[in-house]
């Protein structure tokens, strides 16, 4: 097994705990805002690690670029969605936890 295979595989495996932690946050955090915080950050770090890891393993620049495109699209989507949901929740009068 080549070094690239090892590095890629380790990156993929390193990405998985972020998903588990994101779900933990989704289940345990007290309100919408804190849950947004958990998901929008943790999941996208995990996705980034998985995409880049798989890209390194595939040893193909086209595939790596495609995987990075997927990551960037997901980042844009979740950043916008998080912002929109938080703004609207605030405008609807949902009080952040602890205030």
């Amino acid at each position: 097994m080549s070094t690239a295979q090892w590095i890629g595989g380790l990156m993929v495996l390193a990405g998985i705990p972020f998903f588990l932690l994101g779900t933990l946050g989704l289940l345990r955090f007290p309100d919408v805002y804190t849950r947004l915080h958990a998901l929008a950050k943790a999941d996208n770090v995990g996705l980034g690690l998985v995409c880049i890891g798989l890209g390194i393993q595939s040893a193909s620049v086209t595939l790596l670029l495609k995987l990075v495109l997927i990551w960037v699209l997901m980042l844009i989507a979740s950043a916008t969605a998080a912002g929109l949901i938080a703004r609207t929740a605030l405008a609807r009068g949902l009080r952040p936890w602890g205030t």
Partner: protein
Amino acid sequence: MTELYPAVTVLLLLNIVVGMVRILRGPTAADRMLAAEMFATSAVVIVLLMAFVTGNLALIDVALIFALLAALASVTFVSRAWSAMTGGGSGAECGDDEPGGRS
């Protein structure tokens, strides 16, 4: 490393199943929508891993479409659905001023 990927897909699917509790419990519509967003991210990773496990790289396109459309549900939710949950908006038809537009 690659031998572990099937097990990882199971783990991620389990992650989604556990996350479904949030859809069940709510309490607000936003919480449910958030959970659905999270599932899209996990599904992207599952599809990508499956593409590499089975060697069918066409599956990467499925992940690409998921990523591209991930924003749509939330945007629709915020700009169309949520306004109704708490009331607001007149709900007029745009052809109201025309005679016979609504009989």
